[in-house]
């Protein structure tokens, strides 16, 4: 699934204009906890979150995530959007809640990061 298909599926508004939406999304991680995203990510993961601060953008950068969908109609401050634009990180906002947004993407074939969660706990045992 591409970022453009994610945008259409979630009827999302693109906050960072002129970023490339043809990029492939490999999986999705829905969480308001960035430490969980960092623990269970895989490259090109899409982050679904209600957390609109700078740490979300940093997490994308650090974990090589593909972009962010803010759920529940959340919208970061302009300076956060500009910060993401500088780094060419796609940000969108949707009025769906986290559960519905995740369900809609899952129904279209985008899977989560359960395998990464299992591996994390296996390695930690």
């Amino acid at each position, binding site marked *: 699934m591409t970022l453009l298909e994610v945008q259409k599926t979630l009827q999302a508004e693109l906050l960072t204009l002129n970023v490339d939406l043809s990029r492939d999304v490999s999986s999705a991680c829905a969480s*308001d*906890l*960035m*430490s*969980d995203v*960092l*623990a269970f990510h895989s*490259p090109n993961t899409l982050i679904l*979150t209600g*957390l609109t*601060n*700078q*740490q*979300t953008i*940093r*997490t994308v*950068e*650090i*974990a*090589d995530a593909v972009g962010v969908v803010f759920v529940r109609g959340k919208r970061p401050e302009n300076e956060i959007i500009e910060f993401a634009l500088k780094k060419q990180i796609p940000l969108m906002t949707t009025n769906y809640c986290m559960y519905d947004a995740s369900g809609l993407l899952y129904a279209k074939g985008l899977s989560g990061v359960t395998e990464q969660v299992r591996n*994390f*706990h296996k*390695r*930690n045992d």
Partner: protein
Amino acid sequence: MIENDVLIQEYSIKGWDFSRAGEASCEIKDSLKQIGIPQDVLRRIAIATYEAEMNVVMYAKSATLRCEISPELIIITFDDKGPGIENIELALKPGYSTATPEIREMGFGAGMGLPNIKQNADSFNISSVVGKGTKLEMRFNLTH
């Protein structure tokens, strides 16, 4: 700075400076990318360094972050002035956290910081003196 074929970069990190939190880790990631460190190792270094940097920002007064790059090995150390960790074994358990509600609002304090560091570094060492500070050393092998 280069000493005996080891490239050394140092950064100062300030506690509670959330606007700059993660900046040093991103700079390290960028510079390691430029010298051609493979992407999977690069991501592990970036995640472990970022988690450690966030720990400093959330809990400590200040810290020195040192990144030593040699052809076979990257060593990243954080030496902080802060409250220290009372029970390191407990702090390494996923989910254990002493974070305040303010920290949780930032999306951190889920008790995944040190477990995340442990999973991403090839080896790591942590020592702490309560009331003084914590020293964390992480090593990443470049030759497998």
